[in-house]
């Protein structure tokens, strides 16, 4: 069609202006529609963020962040939920980051991309990322609590009630660690790919072994990527509710979790229960908005930092 247009244009120079006009105007419609889509997404994001910020801004204060809830969640703060969330993602990161980083190193440094092991691991990682979060919750209940926890109880504490075979922060953290593992792996792998080959070769040429090269060259060079992965994992883990509903989160606890087999309060779960099961929605509304805003600030701020580090890393790759 285009060649045809061009040919008629050369044969009839008088039609050139009309043709140019047609080409230009025809382009504005798809372009305009695409631009509209961008603007709608921007508008939706603004509405979501704006309504939450406006609704929650008045509630947030030093007292709100540092005090426990009072009067059946209608007053007081959300300190136990913040503490529980931080403790949860901390445990999660301890479990997920080393495994994720080593997996990425194995995939990038130790195997060829077309080997069977690599392909299996890749399929597993991709699908782990796609498993619905509620299925992770079921798995946490069936595997960590009933199988591992129940097993520990049967062997070490046969006379008592459940010690480890019950919902607990460690089981919730391990469930979340599996959920966020792909995030760490993908982000570390991306960083490993940006490391110039020459650096690794220089290390090997100077007599460094493979392990030494990984420890002294590869991992330090990949630190921004590992950091990005860890931050994204924290942000993702802090926002997930479905996997921890049955594996350890509690709506209200009079104490903070101090042992690995304690239950805990969590921001996302707090929001869910307050929003859906509160006897008096109007009375808890300010606290609810405040809690949502705290969770939003936590996750969005962490994500922005990760995006920033990643875009810097990508620019570095272009220069090398």
């Amino acid at each position: 069609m285009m060649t045809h247009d061009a040919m008629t244009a050369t044969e009839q120079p008088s039609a050139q202006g009309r043709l140019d006009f047609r080409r230009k105007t025809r382009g504005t419609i798809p372009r305009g529609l695409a631009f509209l889509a961008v603007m709608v997404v921007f508008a939706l994001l603004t509405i979501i963020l704006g309504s939450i910020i406006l609704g929650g801004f008045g509630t947030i204060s030093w007292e709100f962040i540092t005090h426990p809830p009072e009067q059946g969640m209608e007053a007081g703060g959300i300190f136990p939920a913040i503490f529980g969330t931080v403790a949860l993602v901390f445990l999660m990161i301890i479990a997920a980051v080393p495994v994720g980083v080593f997996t990425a190193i194995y995939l990038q440094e130790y195997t060829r991309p077309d080997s069977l092991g690599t392909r299996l691991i890749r399929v597993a990682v991709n699908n782990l990322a796609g498993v619905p979060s509620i299925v992770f919750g079921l798995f946490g209940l069936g595997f960590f609590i009933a199988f591992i926890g129940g097993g520990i109880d049967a062997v070490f504490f046969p006379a008592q009630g459940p010690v480890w075979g019950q919902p607990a922060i460690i089981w919730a953290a391990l469930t979340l660690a599996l959920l966020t593992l792909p995030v760490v792996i993908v982000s570390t792998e991306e960083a490993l790919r940006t490391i110039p080959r020459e650096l690794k070769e220089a290390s090997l040429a100077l007599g460094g072994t493979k392990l030494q090269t990984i420890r002294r060259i590869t991992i330090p060079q990949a630190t921004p990527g590992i950091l990005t992965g860890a931050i994204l994992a924290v942000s993702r883990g802090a926002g997930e509710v479905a996997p921890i509903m049955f594996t350890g989160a509690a709506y209200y606890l009079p104490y903070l979790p101090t042992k690995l087999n304690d239950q805990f309060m969590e921001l996302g779960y707090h929001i869910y229960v307050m929003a859906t099961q509160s006897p008096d929605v109007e009375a808890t509304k300010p606290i609810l908005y405040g809690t949502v805003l705290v969770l939003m600030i936590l996750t969005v701020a962490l994500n922005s930092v990760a995006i920033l580090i990643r875009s810097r890393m990508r620019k570095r790759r272009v220069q090398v």
Partner: protein
Amino acid sequence: MFLFRKNKRRPISFNNSLVPGLTPPHTSGGSSLQALLLFRIENSNMKRLAFKPKSKFRESLGAKFIALNAFIALIAILLIFVFIFKEALPIFSDKDIRSEAGLDRMINKQVYYEGREAKWSWQPNSEVPKYSLYPLFLGTIKAALIAMLFAIPLGVGAAIYSAEFATPRFREIVKPIVELLAAIPSVVLGFFALMILATFLQDILGLPFRLNALNAGIALGLAVIPIVFTIAEDAMTSVPRSLRDAAVALGANPWQVSLTMVLPAAIPGISAGIVLGFGRAIGETMIVLMASGNAAIISASFLDSARTFSATIAAELAEVVFGDTHYTVLFFIGSLLFVLTFLINLSGDLILVRLKTRFQGKIK
């Protein structure tokens, strides 16, 4: 220099000029010749590089440790498979559970009370527990469909603009902002739909109920948009330059290049984005749990309530008795979800892999 100093475990090479006049022994055992050599270089700078027999062992141990970690993801996915299915297995093996919630009872219409007509019904807590999965299936598909209808135009449209029309500077703004949408936790999107969107929709549409499938579907769409956007955008930007150049050489305008060259070439990538987005919409829990009303009814209307597979598990698992029929059925639903999303994600990934090889010119 820095590398040299830290490098403690590597044997020095014996055939270099530091030790003249000696043929290199290639064995690494502690022979007397080696002892002599070590003595001779004792006071030189090379001393700290002397051979330590631990090296090889540590090297292979490290490699094994790394490999072990790498297989955790694989083991995890297998364990998830095994443990979800194990809990669902009594549906087929246990006689009592099978009579109450066998495959026939979950799929086909049932007569629950004498004299009444047969119907599909999900009422696990009633006098006569009813475990028909059909209302849940309908609810899941309905919510996911609305989400896709909402997310595809916006996600693909924004991707086209970002990849094709936006100036590089504007693109640097568009991409992170759309990706920011992915950073919003699903419980927050659910909260937004429950408190704000539901009221808005009820006002403009004049609905009798606040919570319905449309409300949940739109909120679900918000979670799907970034997935569709990111994958579609990647597909379009990875279309080889040669294709664009060819179109330009034939006299195409920028928009003609986009619509007649880049877009058709990137269609597999865009559809992969849509497929993966659909996988997310099927499995997403908190949004539908909070925003859809959760009534397990048989209705195709977008303005009626919907109860999805995932929301059913989330809402009911806390109340069930470990190992009873209801518990088993919920794990069976979990297995369904797992298999369904596994297949959806696998097909999405396969499309992406094929697209990649095609753009690299490896396809015959």
